[in-house]
């Protein structure tokens, strides 16, 4: 049930200079705040291209939306944590929730676009999109919660 193990705590201890942590109530009203914070944090000392700012905002918003949904699903009042670690050429964002967890490997594949079945899928777009936008992404999930780690570079190298 683990796809890569994000480990920012260790890094945190070695070098806590460019680390911004945000905790928000698990409510969708705070999504815009999360987007604003990661975009601002990214650009404090580096210069992210506009398209990368947008990739960052969207990828982090997807991860945070899922975290909020996870808490709401089990009626958990705890807050969601978003941590951003900045270095010259990238930002690494870790979104943590204490929801019920899930198995990322077992997510249903989407039906082909342009088929009638596709129309029944109003959901399930978030994680594929997040993975597409981020240069690196790991999801680590257990019954204690889920941690999503996303890395976005200042420029698109692909």
């Amino acid at each position, binding site marked *: 049930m683990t796809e890569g193990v994000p480990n920012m705590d260790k890094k945190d201890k070695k070098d806590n200079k460019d680390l911004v942590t945000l905790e928000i109530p698990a409510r969708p009203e705070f*999504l815009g705040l999360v987007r604003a914070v990661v975009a601002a944090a990214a650009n404090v000392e580096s210069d992210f291209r506009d398209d990368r700012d947008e990739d960052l905002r969207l990828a982090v*918003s997807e991860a945070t*939306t899922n975290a909020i949904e996870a808490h709401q699903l089990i009626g958990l009042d705890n807050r969601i944590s978003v941590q951003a670690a900045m270095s010259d050429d990238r930002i690494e964002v870790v979104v943590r929730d204490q929801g019920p967890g899930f198995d990322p490997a077992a997510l249903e594949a989407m039906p082909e676009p342009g*088929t009638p079945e596709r129309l029944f899928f109003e959901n399930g777009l978030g994680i594929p999109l997040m993975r597409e936008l981020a240069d690196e992404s790991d999801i680590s999930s257990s019954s204690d919660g889920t941690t999503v780690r996303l890395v976005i570079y200042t420029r698109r190298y692909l």
Partner: protein
Amino acid sequence: MDLGLMIERRPPMLVLSIGGDLEMSSVPQFRDAVIDAISAGEHHLVVDLSATDFIDSTGLGALIGALKRLRSADGSLQVACAQPRLQELFKLTDLDKVFVLHQSVEEVVAAGIPNSSKRSEWL
């Protein structure tokens, strides 16, 4: 976040312009607007994303939901979206194959209600 919704009658269509963010916090308002339109007899909607600030997978999901609702009422949903960033987002999620993206509301209005096309057979 604010949906920034503006509604304009362009008979036989109704235009919903989203000037803010279409995401988890504003999707309920968008869904209600679609339901209200349908019950008021408006079955041909245009969603105008020209001035939309932000849209995520929840917002895209809401567009799919609206399309389903309108199809089952023999209606249509068309999208106006000239922002390259948002066009790319539709492509990334393969939704450019579900929605035809128009350059502007005027383009949609000029073209009129879509014929039952090849696409509409299975959508």
